[in-house]
């Protein structure tokens, strides 16, 4: 061996363990493209969007995401890019390093609305919606949660009844991402035992009786549209139902897809906050020296880097399993539970390092921290995933 080969590569403070070694060139290329897009189209504006609670030209942004190939990127055919699960994860991480709300737009479109149609829809439904959703020309939303039924969607009150060949939907959905801007809503409703219980419906949002008022006064995920869906005698043709699935398995299978993205995405918010805190600590001086030089600050940074690294390894491992077709839902729960919890802790710790600046939108930290409060709750709360893990460990269900 020559001395040249023995020279150690330099240390990257944002990848202390050198986990990049585990990624393929294509995976890095996907990540780089998403980062470039976010650097150009999201990062310069997102603090302002968050502050105003509104994304300028959200449809234009969706089309840019579409032309990169982000929307439904892990699906095959129908204009989708057909990328791997790991690549999808890396994309979510980069998106969420910019903002969880922006990542939510992409997750809901690809993993919830498009996935539901792709996995459980008829050929006609796929042809009609997927290509336009992949380009970002059509935006989708996914309505499962209701005002009175969140963690327990099986008790939902939204009803689908048959009227001749038609279906008629009545009910309310709550906290629906993309709702007010959607062209199509995948709505889950109880059709009664004789029709298979919970069924999914593909609802064009211009159908009479459908409306989607915006939910205001949010202090989290402000750069994301969140809405109520009002279904007031929404009459749909017979072929609006997703033919291939019956029961809770339908929506839960979609949530499992989206959760996988969150396992990665949460780390993006964490990385951005850790990076902001690290830089700030090196520049900010108190008592005559950079606060990075105080042991308490270093302890915080070291702990943050440690948890980030462990979370990334877990995400990558789950990604490899998903690509191999061996990923179990309990494992996704494990990943979501750990990564969102640790990511939130990293953001909160980063916030303390920034002192008063930590509460300002001039820095990304408080925005990430507030956003993650939503991410902690949606796609299954921390408590729900704890119970899933508990059940996997003990064989005993503690849900009810």
């Amino acid at each position: 061996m020559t001395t040249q080969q023995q020279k150690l590569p330099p240390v990257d403070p944002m990848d202390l363990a050198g986990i990049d070694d585990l990624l393929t060139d294509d995976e890095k290329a996907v990540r780089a493209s998403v980062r470039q897009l976010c650097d150009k189209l999201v990062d310069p504006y997102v603090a302002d969007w968050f502050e105003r609670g509104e994304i300028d030209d959200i449809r234009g942004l969706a089309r840019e995401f579409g032309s990169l190939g982000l929307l439904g990127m892990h699906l095959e055919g129908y204009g989708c890019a057909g990328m791997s699960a790991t690549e999808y994860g890396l994309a979510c991480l980069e998106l969420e390093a910019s903002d969880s709300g922006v990542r939510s737009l992409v997750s809901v479109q690809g993993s919830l609305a498009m996935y539901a149609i792709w996995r459980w829809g008829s050929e006609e439904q796929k042809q009609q919606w997927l290509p336009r959703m992949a380009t970002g020309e059509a935006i989708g939303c996914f309505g499962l949660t209701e005002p009175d039924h969140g963690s327990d969607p099986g008790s939902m009150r939204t009803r689908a009844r048959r009227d001749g060949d038609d279906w008629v939907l009545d009910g309310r959905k709550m906290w629906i991402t993309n709702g007010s801007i959607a062209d199509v809503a995948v709505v889950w409703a109880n059709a009664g035992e004789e029709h298979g219980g919970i069924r999914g419906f593909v609802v064009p949002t211009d159908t009479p009786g459908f409306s989607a008022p915006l939910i205001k006064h949010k202090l989290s995920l402000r750069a994301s549209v969140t809405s109520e869906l009002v279904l007031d005698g929404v009459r749909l043709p017979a072929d609006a139902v997703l033919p291939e699935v019956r029961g809770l398995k339908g929506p839960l299978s979609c949530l499992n897809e989206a959760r996988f993205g969150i396992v990665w995405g949460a780390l993006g918010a964490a990385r951005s906050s850790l990076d902001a805190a690290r830089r700030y600590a090196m520049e900010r001086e108190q008592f005559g020296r950079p606060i990075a030089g105080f042991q308490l600050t270093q302890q915080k940074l070291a702990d943050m880097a440690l948890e980030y690294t462990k979370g990334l390894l877990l995400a990558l491992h789950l990604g490899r399993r998903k690509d191999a077709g061996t990923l179990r839902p309990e494992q996704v729960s494990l990943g979501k539970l750990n990564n969102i919890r640790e990511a939130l802790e990293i953001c909160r710790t980063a916030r303390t390092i920034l002192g008063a600046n930590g509460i300002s939108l001039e820095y990304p930290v408080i925005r990430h921290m507030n956003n993650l409060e939503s991410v902690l709750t949606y796609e299954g709360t921390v408590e729900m995933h704890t119970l899933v893990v508990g059940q996997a460990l003990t064989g005993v269900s503690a849900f009810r």
Partner: protein
Amino acid sequence: MNIVVCVKYVPDAQSERTFNESDNTTDRVGVDGLLSELDEYAVEEALKIVEAGEGEVTVLTVGPDQAADAVKKALQMGADKGVHVNDEAIHGSDSVATSLVLAEAIKKIGDADLVLTGMASTDGTMSVVPAMLAERLGLPQVTFASELTVDGQQVTIRRDGDAASETIVASLPALVSVTDQINEPRYPSFKGIMAAKKKPVETWGLADLGVDASQVGLDAAWTKVESFTKRPPRQQGQIVTDEGDGGTKLAEFLSAQKFI
């Protein structure tokens, strides 16, 4: 219109760049490399020309094994095929030798209507390869284009100088180097990334080009890095506190430094 774009693989400017202790050449160990950002403009311009008409874009690089990444990036952006000239003997080559290898490779690729390059590399920043290459190929040398149009048998560029902008016309085939003002390079779409896997890349050695090893490499170089020292850390800036006379103090500082 067949276009050959010459691209260089360079150490990432974001990472700490240094020289090898042993032979004073660029140290590539542990430093991530990439397609020189200034060459992305040339790739983008080639893609735009071909997309608006027809033809093929070939990317050409001369460099070590890792330089394949630069070719790949250009293919992901949309170029049709790649050529990578890789030969141990090339290590340490100067611009004169590099232009020789590039010229022979372009001849071997054949049928180039247009040869595009960036305006400089982001590591060597010498800007001389385009001129040398044009000379070797006997092509009109049209450098520093901030705007480029091709029609029929000629190419027209705008070159922005300090005092004036020149419009320059040359007959095809020609060599054009482009500036970072000419366009905004695209980033590879996912479809581009997938498609690049199937695009052809040829790897040639010096023997394939009929170039003798003695004509290139560190020993043949006309210039050589004798020694290197790290730039001393930047001096601390001077803070002017405004006590009502901030403007005057600023002006005094600027005139003392001969800025005004």
